[in-house]
């Protein structure tokens, strides 16, 4: 065990488990909203966030879990950055607007393209179908089909249907993240 690993282990012991998340996905999927929900809980914020220009980082503590989120801008001009920032992440979080059927194809292609890069091999993928409260929102099976998640090999894939607006299922996501972080630690130890 090198010095770096030891330091991380020690930090985990003192501060609780850590996890680096990279939030990616198409524009207007709800990445920044999800980051806010993680940070301050659901539904308190009146105005919708502005489109992210570039990226934003934030550090969140929930239930002894330290989450470092990199919230990436979704517009096409920033997609080149995704790879760069996903490389360091422990979990890639793909947020998708589950009510937006028209964007499904674009989302699938973008996801494929991103995951195809070498630097991201093996990093677990967490797919969040946001806006489940809207009418016409697709369920998990439809999302899995639409994004072609079954074809993804070589990494752990998990899919949740959530609503950032109402806070639906966010706890489930957090539970999964905590479990994942623990598992990671055990694996390292």
């Amino acid at each position, binding site marked *: 065990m090198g010095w770096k690993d030891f330091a991380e282990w020690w930090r985990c012991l003192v501060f609780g488990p850590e996890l680096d998340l990279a939030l990616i996905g198409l524009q207007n999927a709800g990445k920044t909203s999800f980051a806010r929900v993680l940070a301050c809980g659901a539904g308190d914020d009146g105005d919708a966030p502005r489109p992210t220009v570039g*990226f934003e980082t934030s550090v969140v503590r929930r239930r002894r879990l330290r989450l470092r989120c990199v919230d990436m801008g979704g517009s096409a*001009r920033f997609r080149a950055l995704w790879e760069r*920032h996903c490389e*360091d992440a422990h979990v890639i979080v793909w947020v998708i607007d589950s009510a937006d059927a028209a964007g499904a194809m674009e989302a699938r292609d973008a996801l494929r393209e991103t995951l195809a890069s070498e630097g991201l091999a093996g990093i677990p993928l967490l797919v969040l179908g946001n806006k489940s409260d809207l009418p016409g929102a697709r369920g998990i099976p439809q999302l899995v089909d639409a994004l072609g998640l079954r074809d993804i090999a070589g990494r752990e894939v998990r899919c949740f249907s959530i609503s950032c607006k109402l806070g639906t299922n966010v706890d489930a996501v957090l539970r999964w993240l905590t479990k994942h972080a623990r598992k990671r630690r055990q694996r390292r130890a």
Partner: protein
Amino acid sequence: MADGHAESSKKRDEESEEGLDFSPFWGIEKGAVLQEARCFNESQLDARRCQQVITKLLYLSNQGDSFTKVEATEVFFSVTKLFQSSDSNLRRMVYLIIKEICPSADEVIIVTSSLMKDMNSKIDLYRSNAIRVLCNITDAGLLGQIERYLKQAVVDKNATVSSAALVSGHHLLQVNSEIVKRWSSEVQEALSSKNPLVQYHALGLLHRIKQNDRLAVSKLVTQLSRSPLRSSLAQCLVIRYVAQVIKDTKVDEVTGERPFFDFLESCLRHKSETVIFEAARVIIELNEVTTRELQPAVTVLQLFLSSSKPILRFAAIRALNKVAMNNPSSMTNCNIDMESMISDQNRSIATLAITTLLKTGKESSIDRLMKQISTFMTDIQDEFKVVVVEAIQELCLKFPHKHRILMNFLSNVLREEGGFEYKKTIVDCILCLVKSIPDATEAGLTHLSEFIEDCEFTYLSSQVLHLLGELGPSTADPGKYIRYIYNRVILENATIRASAVCALANFGSCSVALRARVLTLLQRCLYDNDDEVRDRAAFFLSVLRTIPETDSECVEDPLIYPLAPLEASLRQYLENTGDSAFDLAVINQIHNNIASHPDMHASAFDCSSMNISSTKNDLRESENIITSRGEFMSYGPIFKVSSYSSSVVNSCHAVDLTEAETEYKVTCTKHIFKEHIVFHFMCSNTIEDQILENVSVVTDPIEGIEVFAKVSTIPLGTMPLGQFGSTFVSYKRAQGLHPVAKMACTLKFTSKEIDPSSGEPESEGYEDEYTLEDIDVTVTDFLTGNPLSAFRKVWDTLPIENEKVGDYSLGTRDSLGEALEAVVGILGMAACEGSEVIAPHARSHTTLLSGFFVGGHSVLVQLNLGMGPSNSVAMKLIVRAEKPYIADMIHTLVSEA
């Protein structure tokens, strides 16, 4: 390079052994630092190490190392990852490096959201820095988004945040002034901040926002002059703005008092020295300042003179130096203080003190001063010495009686060590004194001839030798200079020897007594190594021998002919290759012709070289050519020469497809005579293996056929290669009609190819033609400026019934000056009585223009310009002319432009 490194590391070792500090950045290299920058990408950031690397990058960039685009992009992207760290020191470095290496607008945009988050964070340090960086990289679209936050930040409780927003406002003013102008109420609020820094920045920004509104500035200044500001720097700004306002407003004629002068005077009693000095400086620089107004300022500056702080002494003496130029009498009290400053340790202060004393000094105190200066001269730098010498020159011109002592001083310093600039200043100074003070001539010449005995600068030696040749023969004992001059012939380099020969010859020709001796010396020069020296010696020998024994006449300057006409006629002579010999009288004739029009006289003399590239010279040259042609003599003097820019034809025409670049160059110049107009076409052939003969330009009026009737066409025999030949077309103008025309032009010529084997042109040529651009003739061509000193008088003599008035809209303009320039450019008339100068920030203005219409008819114009809201300019044009149709023409000209 390797040696350098070894040496530097050795040096470093030595230094560290001695326990001295050395830069931690000693010998760092860009490549290595870029390698180190990879630590930004590690998943566990080492904040301290990252800071160090960024510091190194910043150091390199400040030292002038530039990063390639790829390097900058790579660094930038890895730096963006550092936003994940919450280490505040590291974050500061991140801000700095982003500002330093923002790679391109496209990429830099990706930190926008991160910065916007920081801008609204709770940590003040983040906020202020993020504001600065964000404003640095933002574009107009984003600015709208962040404006709200910036506005809040201006009035933030925290001084650094507020200051950062205000300074960013300064920067944004250049990019997007409209947005910043909307902040004025917030900035006004920041002005009353308790923090001096914020106050200073707020005042600066507020003034820049209101800059263009004179009334608002005046109001702002009035308000601020009543209640002193907390920050002394801001107070200084107020003083400067007051100075600006004073400059723009007039002195109250009744009381003779200036507005705000009381305020300036009260600032002289401020507790901060900076403010005191600023106020004093402004008072000194007031227009037409009176002695009474100066007195309080001089008094405080005098106190500064004896201050213990060198910076205050320097500032004070520098300000007093300015006073000494215009009002030496008002500062006699300071002389004692200044004399003690000559021995000041700071040499800049001492030099300023001396030059100031030299300016204020009385005739009686000069001797004492010079003594002090001579001891002082040895231990100052050359550039200071130059200043002193210049001051002495002024002094000597002021007190010519003292030339002996001053000249002695100059010759002493001339003998001492010194660089070229310094020596040149001294020599120039002596030359100037010799020329302006007759009594000093002999002494000056003696000093100079001693100087060239041991002078290392060729330029100065030849200059001195020339002067000796010019002035030496007329002195009482010219013989003594000959030795000095001839010594140069023996000892110096070729350039100096040649000048010395000329100088000698001057002596020989002017003084009969010396002629025999000079001839002997010149004879010896015939064996010189250098061609030029030998040539000059031989030339002067033969000239001197032709002068009768008793005659004493200076060697005549062989170049009595003005260069430009001489060259023009020589060219023409070569062109024609006539049988007769070249006749110099022709040039004199041309010259006299030109001399009869005084304004053209000057232009002909100035034109020393035929520089085709410059339009002005082009015109003069063309004018010279026209005046030298007999054909146009009958037309009278030229009224105006103009080259219409669009008529400068640069035609490209592929004659032979195998040639890569074939072109004829044709430029046209219009010469306006009283009743005629002559188009002068300058044609040049750039194709080597063909000859163009019988070249002419056929003009065909498209418009204005009723006004202009063709008189003659003068073709050009051969179009020379690479040089300009002339062909002319002349028209007669019908009187009283609107002289506007458009001419279609065709270049016609006979082309003969050169046989490559013999180099001779083939006997048979073929006719060819080439279409040129059209020529426009406008009314402006027939107008010239005629500056009048008494516009009103002439205006009243012109018949009022010929007055024509019209209103025009000139559209949106940046300033009145720009609008005026455009109108004057169209009319081509001269502004009178300085009315072309527009007061800064003026909203309305009247300009008086005067000119002649061809035939010597006066035309006067009054232009009333006014700037409305949204910068739209309206113009009222009042024209009076001798003939009503001329006034109409002016209006048509303006309305059609």
